[in-house]
């Protein structure tokens, strides 16, 4: 049974005079433990889709089911609880809180959880050890590198062990070496059972995933499963876009 089910989701933005369809009737299913890369050019709608999957951007129509929960049937406060319990977020610009130390940033999702501070600290240390930053707990975000900041963001996203990790261009601001390390880290988390959905421009990063979804102009145009870094097409889809274009999945030839 699929863990995340997106059913005919459409998201329009703007007013009546300048209506833009950012996501157009997308349906897909993601199983528990999958590592999915969402690709597409800028403005394709991939971040909007990620926002919808993150219970932060209600679709104009369609349904999002996570673990059989109809997310947008929940009211706003329940959606906040859902995000806290089910989702971890990683953002391109890290978005660490500048006045909190590394360990405090990691503990942030637990700030609203009733738990002993000692226990929270232990969990944060464990998460930091997992991302290889056990020795930098008391540094401020401006005292660590970009790669380390991304690791802190990952530690913050996984501290409460959410089943799903949503990453929006997690390596967008990193050099090649750090990118490689972060992708390996995400790979490890996925191997430990975490479902990961990652928006990326990078083919290299996408090939760390086991499934690549391509979006263009709000349409889902390709959905491929990858094994052993060799693209093996298991699903091919021909999708007829509104403009009448036929787009074939990569490797079709």
């Amino acid at each position, binding site marked *: 049974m699929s863990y995340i089910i997106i059913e005919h989701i459409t998201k329009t933005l703007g007013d009546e005079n300048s209506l833009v369809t950012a996501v157009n009737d997308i349906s897909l299913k993601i199983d528990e433990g999958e590592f999915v890369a969402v690709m597409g050019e800028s403005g394709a709608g991939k971040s909007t889709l990620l926002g919808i999957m993150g219970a932060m951007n209600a679709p104009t129509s369609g349904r999002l089911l996570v673990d059989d929960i109809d997310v947008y049937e929940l009211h706003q*406060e329940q959606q906040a609880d859902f*995000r806290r319990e089910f*989702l971890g977020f990683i953002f391109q610009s890290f978005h660490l809180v500048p006045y909190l130390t590394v360990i405090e940033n990691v503990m942030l999702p637990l700030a609203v959880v009733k738990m002993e501070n000692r226990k929270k600290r232990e969990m944060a240390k464990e998460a930091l050890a997992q991302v290889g930053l056990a020795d930098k707990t008391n540094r401020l975000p401006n005292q660590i590198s970009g790669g380390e900041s991304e690791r802190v963001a990952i530690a913050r996203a996984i501290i409460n062990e959410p089943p799903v990790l949503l990453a929006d261009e997690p390596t967008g601001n990193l050099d090649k070496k750090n990118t490689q390390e972060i992708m390996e880290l995400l790979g490890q988390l996925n191997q430990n059972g975490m479902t990961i959905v990652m928006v990326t421009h990078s083919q290299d990063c996408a090939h760390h995933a086991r499934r690549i979804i391509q979006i263009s102009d709000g349409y889902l145009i390709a959905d491929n499963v990858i094994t052993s870094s060799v693209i093996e097409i298991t699903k091919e889809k021909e999708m007829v876009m509104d403009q009448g274009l036929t787009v074939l999945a990569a490797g079709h030839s």
Partner: protein
Amino acid sequence: MNLNAISIKNLLRRKTKAAFVLAGLVIGVSTVVGMISYIEAMTNDINHKLEKFGANILVVPRTENLALSYGGLSLGGVSFEMEEIRQSDLSRISTIKNSANIAALGPLVLGVAQVHDHRVLVAGVDFSATRILKPWWKLKGSIPGADGIILGAEAARILNLDVGNQLMISNNNLQVSGILESTGSQDDQLIFTRLSTAQAIFKKQGRVSMVEIAALCKDCPIDAMVKQISDALPDARVMAIQQVVKGRMETLNQLKRFSYGVSGIILLIGSLVVLVTMMGSVRERTDEIGIFRAIGFRKKHIMQIVFMEAAIVSGLAGVLGYFLGYLTTKIGLAIIGGNHSAMVHFDINLAGNAIVTALMVGMISSAYPAFMASRMDPNDALRSL
């Protein structure tokens, strides 16, 4: 790590903004405290001076008498069933709830005596109470003993008597020990002697004609005191001397109204400072709030962070504002008018009110920014990143 820790750390990071809010509130609170303390000191001073005006409560026997006087011109009166007050009953006055407010209690015995060709009014008084009840008296001579009298200025002139002369009243040979300077009041017409002497002359032992009372008027419960004395002396009629009392009250009320009005304006300005600064702070923290919401903070958690920051700053402002206002008033009064300074004292109630008021101003002013912060859409906030 909890929400309070986030609030504290944010305040420490944004020290300048926090200091700005703090300064705004401290100035507001200290000004209000200073003004209230100053008015309190002035009130004490005015009360002190007003008390020098003498008695402000009269206790007279119940009577069916109608006064036949107007504008100081007395045409005499007709008394029916006139009774005097038993002197022994006066001890009950010291048992009333507000007995601590009684500065002096002066029983008075009145009687008419024939002196030469004149009928004169003789008043037996307690001279120790008279010092408080009639502080305007200026006496040439000395306070009389048991067989002495003092004369009002007009009485001395008409009777042609001076200090050291003897006067026979109802077979009692009394010596004039002093003469009052003109007071412009009825006292000028009277002959004063000791209470016991007058009671002996008029055979009114154990009885008094009336009682004058000077009540201290700090938060003067004159009406309540009148009621209490009436209850203690059911056979007497107790009256507040309304002009003096109302004058005092009016003065105090005007000062208080003025201070409350100015305080309100100052606190309004303080609350606007808090509102504007907190709104700016919330706008600056759009990204932060977006992250908080994205990782699962509820709206109430965001509001709690903002309110906690406001509570910390405004609570601190309340404490600092009180002490600043207190010290400023103390120093200011010492410089402006030395005798006021002793009246400014640490007032735990005012301190508590200052802190509570500062907290309320801080919290109420932060309500809108907190509401705006909590309504922030995490998706919009993150898109702006």
